[in-house]
């Protein structure tokens, strides 16, 4: 029995908004009092549905607008005799595959005609237009607000300045369009200029909070890399809340990437000490990750490594190892490996009592990278001071681990390294003693 009368009745006049308004007021479309749509929106059919759908990706589209087949909003909804509506192209494709059923109700179709659902099409268009225009307006508002704040910042001082910067930071973090506006209106230069020798912590930390959310071009980066400004950023890092510390660290990371800088100028001792403090703070794992990443970047420059060792980095990093996530472990090990390439680093590693036990534990534990780095470090230390370190390593159970590596599916380089290290460690022992020290039963277990 036909449930649905194909309507050849009146076409829904495109200038009539009655249906949508009522529907919205009744909450059918979940739009919650969306307000009146300007007829102008309809008149200018220039608003392309496809574009709007794309830009409003993140919106929660009402389920009645979604095609059950593709789960996408419908451009050209058509209704079957069962009363179910689908996107025209999708349902036609369904038919072309030989089906004669309604995909959702599974009923056999007694009538294979598809009727365009003009009402629904109109509703979909209106809904998207409304949301789109609202978004555009909000964006303009945001842009206007950003411009206002930037103008203000040129004049105000003290607490007012701090407040304005706070607001700018919030706006930039919440709205992508705000970032563009800041950049286009000379915002980066303006707020960078607020960083000077007499900048208070309150102002400085807010400026950094804004800068870290923006895309900085090379000129801006060079400006910020000036020693006076860098000193300020480092001071703020050392004194700030955890959020500020993370922002400063990320900003410095941003400044370092893609610029050709003399690292000894950037990586001051205060920065290195500050970063060490940050990564030791286990209560804030985000800080640990960000801090370690920056340390890795900094240590990739040879000249910094010995200074870093001299501020006591090695024992502090070694102490850090137990309890880190895999991602952090790789970073820590990489830093230690870079430090082990210097004589001071090797000495510090050897002198720290927990180096060998902590690092041996990491073999074959976290990831292949970790194992490789751990091996590299152990190799460096054992080569440096074989008598001391070999026995310590063996006591820590390195032999069993090395055998595991050799037997595993790791890359051949690793296996070779392991074999060499094993040989190095076994040099001072006779075979029997060595095997007993190996505690091989553990491997078998």
């Amino acid at each position: 029995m036909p449930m649905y009368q194909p309507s050849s009745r009146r076409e829904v006049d495109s200038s009539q908004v009655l249906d949508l308004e009522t529907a919205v007021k009744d909450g059918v479309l979940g739009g919650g009092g969306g307000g009146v749509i300007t007829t102008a929106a309809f008149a200018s059919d220039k608003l392309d549905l496809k574009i709007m759908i794309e830009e409003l990706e993140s919106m929660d589209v009402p389920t009645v607008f979604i095609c059950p087949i593709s789960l996408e909003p419908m451009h050209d909804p058509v209704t079957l005799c069962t009363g179910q509506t689908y996107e025209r192209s999708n349902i036609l494709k369904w038919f072309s595959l030989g089906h004669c059923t309604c995909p959702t109700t599974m009923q056999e179709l007694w009538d294979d005609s598809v009727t365009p659902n003009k009402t629904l099409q109109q509703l979909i268009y209106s809904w998207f237009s409304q949301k789109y225009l609202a978004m555009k307006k909000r964006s303009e508002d945001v842009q206007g607000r950003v411009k206002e704040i930037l103008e203000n910042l040129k004049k105000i001082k003290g607490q007012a300045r701090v407040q304005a910067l706070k607001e700018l930071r919030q706006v930039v973090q919440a709205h992508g369009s705000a970032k563009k506006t800041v950049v286009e209106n000379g915002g980066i230069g303006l707020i960078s200029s607020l960083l000077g020798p007499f900048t208070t912590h309150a102002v400085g930390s807010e400026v950094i909070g804004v800068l870290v959310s923006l895309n900085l071009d090379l000129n801006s980066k060079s400006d910020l890399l000036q020693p006076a400004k860098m000193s300020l950023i480092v001071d703020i890092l050392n004194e700030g809340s955890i959020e500020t510390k993370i922002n400063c660290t990320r900003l410095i990371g941003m400044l370092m990437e893609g610029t050709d800088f003399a690292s000894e100028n950037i990586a001051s001792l205060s920065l290195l000490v500050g970063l060490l403090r940050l990564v030791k703070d286990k209560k804030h794992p985000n800080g640990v990750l960000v801090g370690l990443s920056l340390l890795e970047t900094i240590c990739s420059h040879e000249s910094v490594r010995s200074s870093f060792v001299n501020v006591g980095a090695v024992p502090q990093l070694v102490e850090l190892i137990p309890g880190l996530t895999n991602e952090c472990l790789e970073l820590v090990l990489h830093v230690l490996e870079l430090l082990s390439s210097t004589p001071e680093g090797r000495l510090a590693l050897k002198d720290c009592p927990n180096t060998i036990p902590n690092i041996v534990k990491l073999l074959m534990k976290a990831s292949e990278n970790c194992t490789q780095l751990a091996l590299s470090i152990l190799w460096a230390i054992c080569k440096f001071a074989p008598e001391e370190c070999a026995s310590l390593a063996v006591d820590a159970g390195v032999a069993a681990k090395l055998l595991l590596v050799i037997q595993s599916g790791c890359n051949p380089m690793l296996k070779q390294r392991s074999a060499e290290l094993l040989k190095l460690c076994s040099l001072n022992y006779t075979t029997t003693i060595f095997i007993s020290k190996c505690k091989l039963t553990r491997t078998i277990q």
Partner: protein
Amino acid sequence: MGLLCSKNRHYTEADTEENTQAAEIERRIEQETKAEKHIQKLLLLGAGESGKSTIFKQIKLLFQTGFDEAELKSYVSVIDANIYQTIKILYDGSKEFAQNADSSKYILSSENKIIGEKLSEIGSKLDYPRLNRELAEEIGNLWKDSAIQETYARGNELQVPDCTNYFMENLQRLSDANYLPTKEDVLYARVRTTGVVEIQFSPVGENKKSGEVYRLFDVGGQRNERRKWIHLFEGVTAVIFCAAINEYDQTLFEDEQKNRMMETKELFDWVLKQPCFEKTSFMLFLNKFDIFEAKVLTVPLNVCEWFKDYQPVSTGKQEIEHTYEYIKKKFEELYFRSTAPDRVDRVFKVYRTTALDQKVVKKTFKLVDETLRRRNLFEAGLL
């Protein structure tokens, strides 16, 4: 009343009175001890002539009532003394230089020689006459003599004070019969501090009184004064260590064999290692930047042993910045080398200062205040 009361009652009343008095005293002591705890102790340390007393005067001008007329008047004799001492040093210096090679440029005109002898005589006494027009004119003429100017150019080899040029340029005004020193005159006036001086103040910020109370102590910087420092080291919130960065080519007043910058380096190291400063914040004021700026492009840093590995990289303003950063880095290295691992968490900040510039001192102190307040919040667990 005593006559009519029984003996017993008399004693009880006296007792009670004593007790209340004692209780009152106890209460007062307790209150003041509590108040004392909120007072933050700041210590100005540094070698002689590093600018400690100038900073002290600036703080007085900024946060207290400044100098009243009597105080200003008291500086007249100081300024006179500065002038006589300085011109004597320059005159004696010119005679010394005249004895060596290339001596002709250190020889004065005959009139000026007579003036020089007379002033040298005055300057060697303990009591100085008040500066008058006549004397001022004579000193002025002597100052303008090319021999004296040549001597002044080599002032770093003598103990020529930094205020020389300022006072010599203002002789007319200073010799006026009704001369009352200006604030600036007072800031330039040089007296070797002996003993300890202190003031208590509350920094007035944007929100008026911020509630912090500071007690600032100024000390003598010369070697013989330093043994008095140790009595002040307990319970210090922050040490403001002044280092005059222009002095890398000068020697000490108390030991002409010792380079001033080397002395400062050793002194800073010693201060950092003091046991009572375990939790103390350190604010390093790299002072006399204005004089440094004028000097650094012509006198290479390497004349000082500590800076012997310095390499110039550019010219002009960029080079000045570069040298400043180099010196800052050297002090930073020294700090971390002299700081045991358990103390690494104490605050250490470096400031570029020109103690004579009130604006600079005000802004710098604002930052110091902010840092100390944040530190307090941090230690109270509120940050």
